[in-house]
């Protein structure tokens, strides 16, 4: 369990709801290793437990059984405060519904994690400005979330998730509420992050989003049913459009 290549690991990770007849195995004995720098996509039909798995990995929910290790440290048995600190420092969350704080401007939203982590307001502000510039929203810092488009809101949410330079970015259906153009905005951002070595785990039901990952695991009824490495293309882009007849 001290395999430091894997920044995020789970062993026998399970989350059950209900009891007896109505027992639901939302996540059922999942073993997962995410090496540093990998972009992992988790796909599966709705209700297969992929969101629950993501919540378990990020410490938003507690497992019924099993272990979660983040950077060689076991996190599943931390108390609420410990989990909060862990999330603050090491995890960045991105959600389908953006979940920006409606009352705060774009910049203030991005500042939040840094402020919560106890950084000075000046440092938080500088970091937020950098990140917003990086996601191409340097001119929207004072806008409130409802004044931004869906794609812009999700980019702000991603910038916020990155504020404390997390070890792992966890994204739950990050493009689920976005149209094609906005999806491309977000995927381009993910591609940049991937190039910069950011570890990213995302749950999606969109094949186009999943296909950009290094690796794709399929989930069904709480279990992994497939694990595909996608990285390293065939280099035969021409095949795709049938140029070779």
């Amino acid at each position: 369990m001290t395999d430091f290549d894997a920044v995020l690991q789970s062993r026998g990770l399970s989350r059950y709801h209900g009891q007896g007849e109505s027992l639901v195995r939302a996540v059922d004995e999942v073993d997962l290793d995410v090496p540093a720098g990998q972009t992992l996509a988790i796909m599966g039909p709705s209700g297969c437990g992929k969101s629950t798995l993501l919540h378990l990995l990020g410490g938003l929910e507690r497992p019924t059984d099993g272990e979660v290790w983040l950077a060689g440290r076991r996190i599943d048995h931390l108390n609420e405060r410990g989990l909060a600190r862990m999330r603050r420092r090491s995890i960045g969350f991105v959600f389908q519904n953006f979940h920006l704080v409606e009352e705060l401007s774009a910049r203030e939203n991005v500042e939040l994690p840094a402020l919560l982590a106890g950084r000075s307001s000046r440092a938080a502000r500088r970091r937020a400005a950098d990140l917003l510039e990086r996601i191409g929203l340097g001119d929207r810092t004072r806008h409130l979330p409802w004044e931004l488009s869906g794609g812009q809101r999700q980019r702000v949410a991603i910038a916020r998730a990155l504020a404390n330079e997390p070890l792992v970015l966890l994204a739950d259906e990050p493009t689920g509420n976005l149209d094609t153009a906005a999806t491309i905005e977000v995927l381009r951002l993910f591609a940049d992050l991937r190039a910069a070595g950011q570890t990213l785990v995302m749950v999606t039901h969109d094949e186009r989003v999943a296909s950009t990952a290094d690796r794709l695991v399929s989930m069904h009824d709480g279990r992994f049913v497939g694990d595909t490495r996608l990285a390293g293309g065939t280099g035969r882009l021409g095949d795709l459009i049938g140029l070779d007849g």
Partner: protein
Amino acid sequence: MGPILLVFRLVLADVRRHPVQAGMLVVAITAATATLALGLSMHGATEKLYRQTREATAGPDVVALSPGTDRSTITALTSLEHAPGVVAHSGPYRQYYTKLTAHGSTGAAVVQVADMTPGPVDRPLVTSGGWVRPGGAVVERGFATAMHVEVGDRVTVAGRSLPVVGIAVTAARSVYPWALGIGPNGGPTDGGGVVWLAERDTRALVSPDVPVTSFINLKLEDPAAARTVSRHNPAIAPAFEGTWVSTRPWQGISGQNFVMLRDSQPILVVGSWLLSFLAIGGVATLAAGRAAKQTRRVGLLKAVGATPGLIAAVLLTEYLALALLADAVGLTIAHFTTPAIVNPSASLLTTTTGPSGDTIFLTTVVALGVAALTTIGPTLRALRTGTVSALADTAHRPRHRAWLNRVSALLPTSLLLGLRLIARRPGRAVLHGCNIATTLIVVSAMLMIHAQPVKGYPGSPMATHAQTAQARHLLLAVTAAVIALAIVNTVTITWAFAQEARPTMAIARTLGATPGQITAGLSAAQLLPALPSVIVGVPLGVQVFLLFNRGDAAMPPGWWLIAAGVASLLATAALTALPARAAARRSVAQTLSAEAP
């Protein structure tokens, strides 16, 4: 039939889904209607009780008292039997001004010589035990209550120990402690109660040291003319040339009763204003808290083709039905507590007949008004919002508030979030502040009243006690009601706030805020509007007291008032921490997924 069924089904479903909200609504309106009904009943209630007692005891229309027991006095009183308009009489009787000792405490008493069978006028109603017999005393009920005397106890009158054989009420005298009528020398004397003894048992009282008065009870053809029977009436005056007479019409006896409640009525009147205000505040908070949800619900109903009329019916029916329920509960409470509150002492019969039609009408209007006023706004807004934007629930978009942003940037992050959330609904913060200010007005007024020196009846501490206890118990009851309602309101407000803050706080937790930070932030944010309320509420309470106080007022120690302010702040903090803590403990994942469209 179809639409009515649909309306009822939707209303029932909503109440079943939000039982706590429905309960709070009922509690708030109940408190207001109950206090209002009490305040209304108070007006003329003592008079009503007196009338009842008068009917039940064949109360006299006029009591005429003259000092001494001389033949001339008796002759003069007897001449009244033939005065114009007099149709019946009892007496003349004697009464001795003495003291009564029971259970070691002594109080002023007037001992009346009683017939074994009372005459046609003034037949005291025995409420327990039996009527006077030789060797057995009957004590007037208000007096007995103040002295803690019951049938079977022994009392000492003029050095003789006698068993109490009965407790009775009479309409011939004002309530305890004003039963004496006139003093031994013709002037008024307060602070005593009535004891009836057989003639034989009063012989020991015949002594130059014990003042004595004679009196006669008269019944008139026209009771309304009772005031005309007086020394100034030329038909009566000649008989009393050699002596002195005090005539007490029944209206005067009745009027004296209300003196007991003089301190109590402002308490109830002001109390019911404040309680109504709190009720409106609480209901408004509930209604506003649900407005967003209602808007969405209206959108859904519109989308499936409901007409605006039906939608308004659904929204209003629920609140009006709950208001009517609360009205009924409030009137019932008032019905059962009225006798205890409006009865100045136990001296009157308390078989009330329930709230009058006027009271029922007025409280119903108020209850429905509170419900309608506070729901019509959200209802209209919900109806006016377009179906699509209602479904999307785009109402209540936050605004840019530059000054707030500058100020809150200096605060800890969780407090910053709390403040921004509060700023989103400033109306609620104002309500919250008013709620606390109102409570403090009542609490500091209560402290002021407690700080006043007790004005008593010399020689009769239990009489003094009876009057101050009356006012203070009432004040305590009103204060308790206000505090209870304020707590309900604070919980409502903070609960609504915590509900709204939930998603934001869940987001903060995904970003690494601890439950403790969340609780502290939410709670501290709500203490801010409470602070100015405390600063304003305490002096206002003192002012309200001074407004109703006659004469000089004593100030309570300053630390009492400061302690009240601090206590209310601490209580608010505790009350706000509860829902905040509950919100902080809720699963983040659940909260966020519940937010998903």
